[in-house]
């Protein structure tokens, strides 16, 4: 995102450069002043104690703090997050397929369940499960409450990903399967869903970031995760601000690394599916509309003249398609399924990674990454 990619302002001339330098200096000064103010306030608060003193930081950083508090807490956090992601993938696949099967009743029930759990705040789910599991006599109720809350919400998001992933495949996949004599159900299970699953892998990693962040809600229901353990350490030495900073840094580093991984995934997955690989788990907005993944792809095809992020939604909508029976069909016949042969008469097949390397486009990852995935 350097200046050269932005056309919002001219390539500055001598006077413009001077002005920018001046703004830069003023802005940097303001930011530094803010930082200094905060540090001074922490060092010498109106009343209370110096929050920067080593006396408070040492117990938050020494070996004992890591072995007895942060690392066990982190293990609990990771354990809940990983089980929750695995569980939500299972939940998502089951209900995502449930929303696609020919049987109307199954579709309706799946839709109600998915929409319900997408709307209920995770904290409410966790509180409810926690009390309920405790009454039911389950051992470690807070652990299962955290996992349960995370699975139901994130599973619903993944169910939407599966649904939009299937909705986003070129219609030819299904047509070919039916032409080969597969039943609609067989086509769904053996041709469409597997491709949708690969397409949604990057988004699943992004979802892991969300899950990892949301495990921190578990501390509200007494789950001994990283946040709760750092609280306990803080209870002993009265340095809860310091222990929370350490915990915050651990969360940040983990989430940041996972986000970077998620960003690299689409390039790796692209060669393995006809679907669109996206990092952001954007579920369809309209309740009955499974087509937004197409729209996402459509949006991302465009240029990024101002150096902004990938667009998630196109600048034009064609109605929500909520009432269209053949929304899969509608999309490519309108010419908005760029992967579909109809839109590219000169390219009878989707561009393979090798094509991208030849044309040198490679907007979604370096050519080497794509080649590795072939």
């Amino acid at each position, binding site marked *: 995102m350097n200046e050269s990619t932005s056309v919002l302002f001219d390539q500055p001339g001598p006077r413009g450069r001077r002005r920018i330098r001046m703004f830069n200096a003023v802005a940097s000064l303001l930011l530094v002043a803010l930082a200094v103010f905060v540090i001074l306030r922490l060092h010498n608060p109106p009343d209370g104690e110096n929050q920067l003193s080593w006396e408070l930081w040492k117990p938050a950083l020494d070996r004992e703090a890591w072995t007895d508090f942060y690392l066990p807490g982190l293990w609990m956090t990771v354990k809940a997050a990983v089980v929750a992601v695995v569980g939500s993938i299972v939940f998502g696949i089951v209900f995502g397929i449930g929303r696609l099967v020919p049987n109307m009743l199954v579709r309706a029930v799946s839709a109600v369940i998915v929409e319900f759990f997408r709307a209920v705040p995770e904290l409410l789910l966790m509180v409810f499960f926690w009390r309920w599991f405790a009454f039911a006599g389950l051992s470690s109720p807070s652990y299962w409450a955290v996992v349960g809350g995370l699975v139901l919400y994130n599973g619903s998001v993944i169910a939407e990903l599966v649904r939009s992933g299937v909705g986003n495949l070129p219609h030819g996949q299904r047509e070919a399967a039916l032409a080969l004599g597969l039943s609609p159900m067989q086509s769904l299970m053996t041709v469409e869903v597997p491709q949708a699953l690969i397409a949604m892998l990057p988004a699943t990693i992004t979802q892991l970031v969300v899950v990892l962040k949301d495990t921190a809600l578990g501390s*509200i229901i007494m789950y001994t995760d990283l946040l709760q353990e750092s609280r306990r350490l803080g209870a002993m030495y009265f340095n809860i601000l310091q222990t929370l900073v350490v915990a915050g840094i651990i969360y940040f580093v983990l989430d940041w690394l996972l986000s970077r991984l998620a960003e690299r995934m689409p390039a790796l997955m692209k060669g393995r599916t006809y679907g669109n690989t996206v990092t952001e788990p954007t579920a369809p907005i309209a309740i009955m509309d499974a087509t937004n993944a197409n729209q996402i792809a459509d*949006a991302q095809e465009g240029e990024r003249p101002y150096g902004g992020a990938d667009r998630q939604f196109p*600048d034009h909508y064609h109605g929500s398609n909520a009432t269209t029976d053949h929304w899969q069909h509608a999309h490519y016949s309108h010419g908005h399924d760029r992967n579909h042969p109809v839109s590219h008469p000169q390219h009878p097949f989707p561009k393979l990674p090798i094509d991208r390397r030849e044309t040198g486009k490679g907007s979604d990852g370096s050519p080497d990454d794509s080649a590795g995935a072939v």
Partner: protein
Amino acid sequence: MEAFLDLFREYDIPGAFWVNIQLTFWGAVISLLLGVILVMMRICPVSSLRGFATAYVEFFKNMPLTIIMVFMVLGMFGQLKLSFSDDFDINFFWLAVTGLALYTASFVCESLRSGINTVPMGQAEACRALGLSFWQSASQVILPQAFRGSVAPMGNTLIALIKNSTVAAAASVTTETSSVMSDMIEFHASQILQIFFIFALGYVILIIPIGLLTTYLSNRLAVRR
């Protein structure tokens, strides 16, 4: 049924939802302002501001909201003495709003950034040809169109904000839904299922219309090209 109605008599359930709606409303207004400022910083020619905005967004996107809420009370209020009112209830409410707004602003910024790219290059080029400055072209041409192109991700952000308003419990706001529900379960354990469904349905009723409205608006407001 009588016991069920007693729940409503004993606890102020609509009041609890009202607290969450207020948290959401103010959080949305402030995070929208902050998000616009951030997105301007991210596309402006001044590199220190761009750097700050990028760091801000990365920081808040990867930080659990629960920690931010605890920090609002113990850090912002406790150490930096940022206080909105001498009345604790009002003070904690606004601290929670601030925490929600700071957190959500990073998502608003990202939504707007994705909206900005829906504006065709020609618009900016025309601005430059007319001699508009960065500030003029951003505020009068690019951003208004970006808003219309980012209705859908903004809607998703708003839905997330409504749900996140329950985390205000971590900032001592005790009258919001998750705390009230927790209290009710404590004293009416046998009705745990009913209690949960009252609150869950409340959120379904709040959120589904917003999803539908988002779809409607994004269709209506999109700039057709």
